[in-house]
């Protein structure tokens, strides 16, 4: 696969991933385009620059691990893994998303895609699993790291804060959490459902290193991941400031596209915008 630090190349990959997301959810006639589009740069930066992994050898023992705890954003993960060239995520089957027999299940399922590190979909659990992986790496004296993407609405789940306490207390500094802070959840705006602010203060109070990148600025994300790697003695959380539905004008900041797929006409318009 083509790993790169080049911003123009990474941006081009991100644009392609966005097109996949629109086409996949359009073909499926269901799914979660908004929260997939908001996490594109985060996943592209991780998979194409930051993470040590080898799509040709998905069980490589020293690979970095990735967990999409906000499993409903499965389309972005599928599209990114497909572009990386994992054998169990073929590009030409992306549009079978959510169809009977497809490897592209509604939420990530490692029974269908063994290259996945975890099966997710029930919110609030991925951070704990990531920290368990981090403990294992530390016990084995290994340098591999674990990355976990959380939804902003997801961190309303109590288990997240159990895990946050645990991660700081046990100094699990090889785990990086990324909150995709797009400020919208299923029923509306986060501030109207269950406000999270002051969010950075909450994580700091729980003992985490906090970095606040622009989640659509790849250079900003690269810098944030570098800071996370340099932080020792405590875990790091990136509060990635993002826009739900990013890249498609009529989806941006529109709560409707949390869990509604674009119509064929909307797919056509979106693909024009993403050309």
């Amino acid at each position, binding site marked *: 696969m083509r790993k790169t630090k080049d911003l123009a190349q990474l941006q081009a990959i991100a644009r392609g991933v966005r097109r996949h997301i629109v086409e996949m959810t359009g073909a499926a006639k269901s799914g979660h385009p908004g929260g997939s589009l908001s996490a594109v740069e985060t996943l592209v930066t991780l998979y194409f620059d930051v993470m040590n992994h080898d799509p040709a050898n998905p069980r490589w023992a020293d690979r970095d691990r990735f967990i999409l705890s906000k499993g409903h954003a499965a389309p972005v993960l599928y599209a990114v893994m497909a572009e990386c060239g994992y054998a169990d995520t073929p590009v030409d089957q992306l549009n079978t998303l959510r169809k009977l027999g497809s490897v592209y299940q509604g939420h990530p399922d490692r029974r269908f895609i063994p290259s996945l590190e975890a099966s997710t979909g029930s919110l609030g659990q991925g951070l*704990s*699993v990531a920290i368990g992986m981090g403990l294992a790496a530390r016990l084995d004296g290994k340098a591999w790291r674990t990355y976990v993407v959380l939804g902003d609405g997801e961190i309303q789940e109590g288990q997240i804060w159990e895990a946050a306490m645990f991660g700081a207390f046990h100094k699990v500094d090889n785990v990086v959490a990324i909150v995709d802070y797009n400020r919208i959840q299923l029923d509306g705006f986060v501030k109207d459902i269950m406000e999270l602010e002051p969010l950075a203060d909450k994580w700091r109070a729980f003992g985490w290193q906090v970095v606040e990148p622009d989640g659509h600025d790849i250079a900003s994300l690269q810098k944030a991941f570098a800071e996370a790697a340099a932080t020792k003695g405590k875990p790091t959380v990136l509060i990635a400031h993002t826009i739900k539905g990013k890249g498609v004008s009529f989806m941006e900041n529109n709560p409707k596209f949390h869990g509604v797929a674009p119509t064929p006409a909307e797919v056509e318009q979106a693909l024009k915008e993403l050309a």
Partner: protein
Amino acid sequence: MAAKAKFELKLGPATREAFGATLVELGRENKDIVVVDADLSKSTMTYGFSKEFPERFFTCGIAEANMVAIASGLAAAGKIPFAASFSAFLMTKGFEQLRVTVAYPNFNVKLVGTHSGISIGEDGPSQMSVEDLALACSLPGFTVIAPADGVATSALVRAATAMVGPVFIRTGRVKVPVVYAAGQQFEVGKAIELIEGSDVTLMAHGLMVAESIRAAETLEAEGISARVVDMHTIKPLDREAIHRAAAETGAIVVSEEHLVDGGLGVRVAQAVAELHPCVMEFVGIRNTYAESGTPDGLLDKYGLRAPEVAAAARRALARKK
């Protein structure tokens, strides 16, 4: 076991104590064994492991949901994690995590519930686990074990460690009668016939195995030949042993320190219905929570004793005719 063997049933260790001692031995033998615990290590008996292997013991605080999912991550990365708590908390507060982060990805996590049943005693119903087997058995791919004594616990904890996949092991707080001689062999999924018999079969798990042995002795004095079978593995069931019991004795009594809803009894009944329908009776807790009291007082009051098992056997025999 020899037919008509006499069981002394002397009081031995609690099954949680046997678990704790075995865990330390396993820790010495296998460096991949790690333990997570939710502020109950002195009760679940993982304390000994924590002292000898502090680097492989992770306190989670009072946070069972996180504890189970931490264990999932450890297992995903190749460790053999034991997660221990009171069964009541492990299986209920950790259930969703057991479902999504352990059963669904089929990770190699070993769950040990202690203080199961009502024999925990004075702490009362909030701490008593009477539905844990129903919950554990509902998880696809889970192996579910409820040992009768210390020897069985030690052997079955070892067997669970040797196999790959999620296992729930149910242990208790109180000292229980010794059923097995040291060195008894156990195989996960294979029931053990403790007493031969031809009129009725008494099946049980946990501390009801000893009560069933006592019931069989009472019945023998009445001229009733009762077979006693330790169903230490609740899932997967030993369907062959069930089929034999149904076909050869024509009547089965299942006794357990658990709600009759969703426990071993209904699972055996399903197998009996499929394999060889016969008369059945059930001894267990019926649609209620218990209360505070001494363990013995509670087992007496809630009918989890040899006389109730014997009475159920007589009812079954009467219906069989």
